[in-house]
């Protein structure tokens, strides 16, 4: 069995590298960009394709990624622009949020957006050496053509739409987002992945975040791709002294979605506030591996996950918080909760704390279960019908995270998307 699995992994890796070789010369970019691609391909070859036997990938639906074609969708800028125009005419794009500048990428190609606050460059390589647990980020470094590069000095509000069109069906799309905030800068960033190609499509995204001293990033992430998409995003954030990184993650779409994330709290007083929800139905698989590394004194993590698994879906969230010997005075809080609604559904939650210093305040908790019968009876005893009562309780469950979305327009959108994932639950504007 092990031999077969190894062979299979080797075959997948061969296929990735073969697809890469077949397109490498035609991918855009400077010589240094090509060198970076080669370096990424070499790294992946050295590390190898992930295995479900590795605890880190245990709950990922690797097979969905192994069935993919890795060759990027062959779309030109003109085709992407035409696709965007068509989507705009059809009203298929989410409404713009007041005060936000929008950048749009279609099938990984930059189409439109304000250059006043951001650069949308040809991929120019990455100086981030992805570790083994973030290895799928290397796919993007190998294949991506464009990158959304945001350098913020001051204050900005930006929305980046990564659209996957039908033109990418059967191929792969590589969105890439690189964010750098100068000291003291503030950014509200909406990162949204959407699009529903009509055949199996791989969307492999990587995101790098570099927050300077006392910078503040509010990062709203919505994954709402169609069911034919196998989606993986790899995120690496470095947070400097007194900088704050706020994440609001919402995973609703794709047939399979995997998030691999690493946050390094590198300076004294750095903090991350990671609030995420996932809602699965049918046979969706949503899996997140989040590692937060406290590497400096007085750093802080606040981590919340709420997931509802309906029908036969599977959700997993693993949150590992490592507090090093160099991080006295750190605080860490984890609250992971899952609600199983479907008879064939599954939720796996793994809170993990590794503490290697004294003077730490840390708490973690995880629970998975079904709707509380006592709460349900209370609502029924007030005359609410059963469907309404159940919907209300599910809504309240997700509310722990939804109510932390401080952009009213986006929150309304997130609530609409969440309701769409919960059978028979209307959008209820009731969260206190």
């Amino acid at each position, binding site marked *: 069995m092990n031999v077969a699995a190894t062979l299979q992994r080797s075959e997948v890796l061969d296929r990735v590298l073969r697809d890469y070789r077949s397109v490498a010369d035609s991918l855009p970019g400077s010589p240094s960009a090509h060198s970076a691609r080669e370096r990424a391909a070499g790294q992946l070859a050295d590390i190898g394709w992930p295995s479900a036997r590795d605890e880190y990938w245990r709950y990922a639906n690797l097979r969905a990624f192994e069935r993919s074609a890795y060759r990027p969708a062959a779309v030109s800028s003109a085709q992407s622009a035409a696709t965007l125009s068509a989507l705009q005419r059809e009203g298929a794009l989410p409404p713009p949020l007041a005060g936000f500048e929008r950048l749009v990428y279609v099938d990984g190609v930059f189409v439109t957006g304000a250059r006043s606050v951001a650069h949308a460059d040809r991929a120019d390589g990455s100086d981030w050496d992805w570790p083994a647990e973030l290895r799928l980020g290397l796919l993007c470094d190998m294949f991506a053509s464009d990158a959304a590069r945001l350098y913020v000095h001051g204050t900005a509000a930006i929305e980046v739409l990564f659209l996957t069109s039908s033109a990418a069906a059967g191929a792969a799309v590589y969105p890439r987002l690189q964010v750098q905030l100068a000291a003291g800068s503030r950014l509200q960033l909406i990162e949204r992945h959407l699009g529903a190609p009509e055949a199996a499509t791989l969307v492999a995204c990587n995101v790098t975040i570099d927050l300077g001293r006392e910078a503040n990033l509010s990062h709203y992430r919505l994954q709402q791709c169609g069911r034919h998409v196998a989606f993986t995003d790899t995120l690496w954030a470095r947070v400097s002294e007194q900088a704050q990184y706020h994440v609001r993650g919402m995973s609703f779409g794709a047939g399979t979605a995997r998030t691999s994330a690493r946050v390094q709290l590198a300076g004294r007083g750095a903090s991350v506030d990671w609030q995420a929800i996932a809602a699965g139905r049918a046979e969706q698989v949503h899996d997140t591996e989040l590692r937060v590394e406290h590497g400096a004194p007085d750093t802080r993590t606040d981590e919340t996950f709420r997931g509802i698994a309906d029908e036969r879906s599977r959700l997993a969230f693993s949150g590992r918080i490592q507090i090093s010997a160099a991080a006295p005075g750190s605080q860490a809080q984890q609250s992971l909760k899952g609600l199983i609604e479907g008879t064939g559904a599954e939720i796996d939650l793994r809170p993990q704390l590794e503490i290697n210093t004294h003077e730490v305040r840390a708490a973690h908790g995880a629970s998975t279960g079904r709707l509380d*019968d006592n709460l349900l*009876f209370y609502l029924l*005893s*007030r005359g*609410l019908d059963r469907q309404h009562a159940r919907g209300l*309780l599910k809504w*309240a469950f997700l509310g722990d995270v939804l*109510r932390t979305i401080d952009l009213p327009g986006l929150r309304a959108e997130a609530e609409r998307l969440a309701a769409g994932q919960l059978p028979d639950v209307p959008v209820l504007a*009731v969260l*206190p």
Partner: protein
Amino acid sequence: MSGTRDTAAVSTPAAALLEVRDLHVRVGGQAVLKGVSLSVRAGEVHALMGPNGSGKSTLAFVLAGRPGYEITSGSASFEGRDLLTLAPEDRARAGLFLGFQYPVEIPGVNNAYLLKAALNAARRERGLTELDAFEFLSLVRAKTQLMHIDESFLGRAVNEGFSGGEKKRNEILQMLVLEPKLALLDETDSGLDIDAMRIVANGINSLRAADRSIVLVTHYQRLLEYVVPDFVHVLAGGRILRSGDRSLALELERRGYDWISGQAAA
């Protein structure tokens, strides 16, 4: 008998709003109610008293339709309908209200939303139009004042972070908004200080009407000083051992429950 009508003077017989007959209930294989009969007519206030573990809360839950209780025999009807076959939500819409001894906290569910949804469910059942947000607020505002509840409560999650007394007042607020035909109030007086007791009692009394009945489940007669019952029943060992008027509650206060349990044993 365990009934009520023969022990209290009622001059105008009328059909019972609630009629419980020889009800036997088991919980976890254990017999808890062993033949309870109780008849409540419109306009009446009954007090159901008894020691801990006597089955008072079980009776309230069974009548409200809480799952987990095995009804082995007997019947319960509400306005002539078989109550025990109705879903809890249908019982509520028919006009039965249970005030919980331990109201649950529901984080994330807004008090005002629950009240409005519950009220409109009841109104639909009665063939009335639903209230819009403005109409609802106008209605609920007067009720919150009566219950000395700050309006900010409406925007908070149901019972979350409320003190014990606030939870009980919130239960009565819900009752005032829903205006049920029959209110079963399970130890609404427990955990209340004297001021809160008066407020809760005022709320209950404000709802007394010729077409409405109230069953107060309580250990003590203190609440009955404020909400004077027409009938008092003593439930012990799963049966109603004695029924009478208010003087029975006063006698219980003096002599305790052992007196009645002892008589029954004899």
